[in-house]
């Protein structure tokens, strides 16, 4: 029934052939991509316009840590694909196992990231303080962009946990697992831009 109380026209379906929740997550992803895009553009502007932009990252430990984090996140996308395929083919136990591995990998990514932040904060980096004497805006863009991404990762791990629990109890279906997977892949995709632009472009 529509809101006006009239039944939907016979044969009327989704214009894209997908459920509403999937379309909704796609619209969210486009909006969120524009948000990250704006932050990365702002970072680029500041980097070009600042005469004393700092390039603080050495291969060890920062870039090496970043490579591991990237590999972990990419692998978590693969395990999420496994969860979606298993859910869609009715293999609930396998799907739950894949979801658990995805959460674990998301947790590993968050721990590695927080460890890196802690080391930088120990060195004197803050949102608006640069211990190397260059532009203080490096900290603002680094912590701002990676912090927003980390928030997405942590939220994603929590959401996967909630969906997995509902899926186990039969409250959620394979469609919910797929929708969660789309969000998780998006978080991975954003990192594919954050790692080269924020880390690799700032090696010593």
């Amino acid at each position: 029934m529509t809101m006006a109380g009239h039944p939907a026209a016979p044969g009327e379906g989704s214009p894209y052939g997908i459920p509403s929740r999937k379309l909704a997550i796609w619209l969210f992803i486009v909006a969120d991509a524009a948000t990250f895009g704006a932050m990365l553009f702002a970072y680029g502007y500041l980097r070009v316009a600042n005469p004393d932009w700092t390039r603080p990252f050495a291969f060890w430990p920062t870039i090496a840590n970043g490579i591991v984090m990237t590999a972990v996140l990419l692998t978590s996308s693969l395990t999420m694909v496994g969860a979606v395929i298993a859910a869609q083919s009715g293999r609930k136990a396998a799907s739950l196992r894949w979801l658990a591995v995805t959460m674990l990998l998301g947790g590993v990514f968050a721990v590695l990231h927080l460890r890196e932040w802690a080391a930088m904060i120990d060195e004197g980096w803050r949102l608006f303080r640069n211990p190397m004497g260059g532009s203080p805006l490096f900290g603002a863009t680094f912590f701002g962009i990676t912090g927003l991404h980390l928030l997405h990762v942590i939220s994603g791990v929590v959401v996967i946990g909630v969906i997995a629990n509902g899926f186990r109890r039969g409250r959620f279906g394979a469609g919910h697992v797929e929708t969660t997977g789309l969000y998780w892949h998006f978080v991975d995709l954003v990192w594919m831009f954050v790692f080269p632009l924020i880390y690799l472009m700032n090696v010593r």
Partner: protein
Amino acid sequence: METRQSPGMKLYVIVWLGLLLIVGVEVVLTYAHLPVGTLLASLLLLAGLEAALGLLYFMHLRYERPSLFWSLVPALLVVLVLMDHFWPDALRLMHQRLPPP
């Protein structure tokens, strides 16, 4: 709801390996002492390739109706292109830099 049949896990593993390989190429290029502009262009190109692989395969866009792709992706690209208005000002500031004392 109609969604075209998705491929098996084997294809996804190949895409995952390809993505890991691209990350490796990015790191190698970073330490190849390229000019900053060349490095930036290369990294952006490779990141775009990774994004395309992620969207088409992991996010299954290749197997949805084309109308979904054409409704979402061009709109996002237009938004990102519109943000390029800021570059002339950043470049102006870069060229106004004083020589080091």
